[in-house]
């Protein structure tokens, strides 16, 4: 009798756990289906997650920042010209605290020799938009850094639980589902080249608006705090931090902002390169090297900047030439093939020849 009762109890327990498993699996599948895949539209939302797929994360150079890094520098060029193994950890309108926590997250996997941070995001001390937050935060693997980044980023309307269970936030996407949501249910489509978002088309910079008068040109305390933290994090890991301002003409980079960064870099003995002032040295031509009238570089512009940066990394900071390492040679041969295939596909898509671009 007792044995029969025990058997019944065991069966009931198994039934309970199986039922729970089925419910959880169903919810997980629903969540997978409903979250944005960033495969065809707004592909920038897939950039952060792609890093974790890298076979060899032993990068010597890591770029962190917003679109002014992931659209303006080409790691493939750095490899081809200098044998520099690099990656861009950037996403759209990536705030400085998000860059800081992405760097912290990166250090869980490896310690680069050089970190390059673009200072454009110093203008923000608060997150502006949930959609941008999600494009950066959702792609991060779970870690203390991700939790801290979410807590630092959330706008008033956002809930932490929505990041833990994205289905709570995306349930209304039912009506927007496309074939991509099924196609990329379990596997994502690569959208970048080591974090670089490629565009080959050309739109010359014309009529770029100047800056309007601001009541206060000072960067916010929060932005300074995270920049200081980034400096300390790099110092603690013996990483050379290089500050840059990409040569994007818009949004406007105020002289007052430039002065603050120059002072900070001088005080902390950090190198700072403002590419807006280095167009002659880099060879950037705003009539051919940008695809959106000066906001971002096209492929030609990104390759020119990378070539210039690579020389500095090699000659001034001794970043090694890793060519000849069999594993990296194989990885980068694949990367180069994907890079050239996309380049060709885009030339065909835009009905262009490489000569029509700045290169």
């Amino acid at each position, binding site marked *: 009798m007792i044995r029969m009762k025990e058997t019944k109890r065991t069966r009931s327990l198994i039934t*309970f756990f199986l039922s729970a498993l089925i419910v959880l699996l169903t919810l997980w599948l629903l969540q997978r289906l409903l979250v944005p895949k960033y495969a065809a539209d707004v592909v920038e939302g897939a950039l952060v997650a792609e890093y974790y797929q890298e076979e060899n994360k032993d990068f010597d150079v890591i770029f962190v920042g*917003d679109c002014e890094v992931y659209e303006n520098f080409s790691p493939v060029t750095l490899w081809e010209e200098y044998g520099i193994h690099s990656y861009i950890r950037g996403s759209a309108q990536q705030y400085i605290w998000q860059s800081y926590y992405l760097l912290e997250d990166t250090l869980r996997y490896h310690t680069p020799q050089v970190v390059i941070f673009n200072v454009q995001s110093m203008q923000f001390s608060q997150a502006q938009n949930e959609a941008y937050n*999600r494009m950066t935060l959702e792609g991060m693997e779970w870690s203390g850094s991700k939790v801290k980044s979410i807590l630092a980023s959330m706008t008033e309307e956002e809930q932490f639980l929505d990041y833990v269970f994205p*289905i709570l936030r995306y*349930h209304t996407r039912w009506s927007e589902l496309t074939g991509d949501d099924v196609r990329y249910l379990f596997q994502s489509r690569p959208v970048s080249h080591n974090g670089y978002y490629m565009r080959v088309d050309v739109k010359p910079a014309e009529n770029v*608006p100047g800056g309007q008068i601001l009541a206060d040109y000072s960067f916010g305390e929060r932005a300074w705090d995270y920049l200081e933290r980034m400096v300390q994090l790099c110092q603690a890991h013996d990483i050379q931090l290089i500050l840059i301002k990409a040569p994007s003409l818009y949004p406007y980079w105020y002289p007052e902002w430039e002065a603050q960064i120059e002072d900070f870099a001088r005080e902390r003995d950090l190198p700072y390169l403002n590419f807006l002032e280095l167009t002659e040295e880099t060879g950037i031509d705003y009539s051919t090297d940008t695809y959106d009238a000066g906001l971002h570089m096209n492929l030609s512009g990104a390759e020119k900047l990378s070539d210039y940066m690579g020389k500095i990394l090699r000659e001034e900071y001794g970043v090694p030439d890793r060519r000849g390492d069999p594993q990296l040679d194989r990885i980068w041969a694949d990367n180069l093939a994907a890079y050239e295939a996309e380049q060709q596909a885009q030339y065909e898509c835009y009905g262009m020849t490489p000569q029509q671009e700045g290169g």
Partner: protein
Amino acid sequence: MRKSCIAFAAAALALVLAACAGPDAPATTSPAATPGGTPLSPYPEAYVFQVRGTEVAIDQDMAEVLEALGEANSYFEAASCAFDGLDKTYTYSGFVITTRPDGDRDLVNSILLTDDSVATAEGIYIGSSQADVLAAYGDTEVAYNVIQYTLDNTTLNFILEGGTVLSIEYIPA
């Protein structure tokens, strides 16, 4: 035990359904879209900029403004990082209008007065004094050289230097 299983499944389902009553998913195609997808419309009580016999208001369809004012002296468009649609800047003599995309339309997102050839509907122009502003719009706090007034969907921003208006801008409240 079966009841427990059903209760567990029901609770899980309720969690999802309860979430369905929450806000819409964040925009993945345009950050300017309103949460419910409802088109924005001008507010009759809001501050408006009057120029060349026409009114320009925040959230107004830019097509109407272009029809009234004609082509701008210069035009610039910029794609938002990652999103579809263009933020557009129309520069006229004395003022600059920017727009944001909203579906097929472009809505006025800001109106910046750039010189003293134009003035607000209440008569304030670049070069007016702080006292002029307070007299025209009412007493309010002056914080960090900024005076702000909000009516409905529009905030009118005055930036001052040494007690003189340096910049005037209409922005969404």
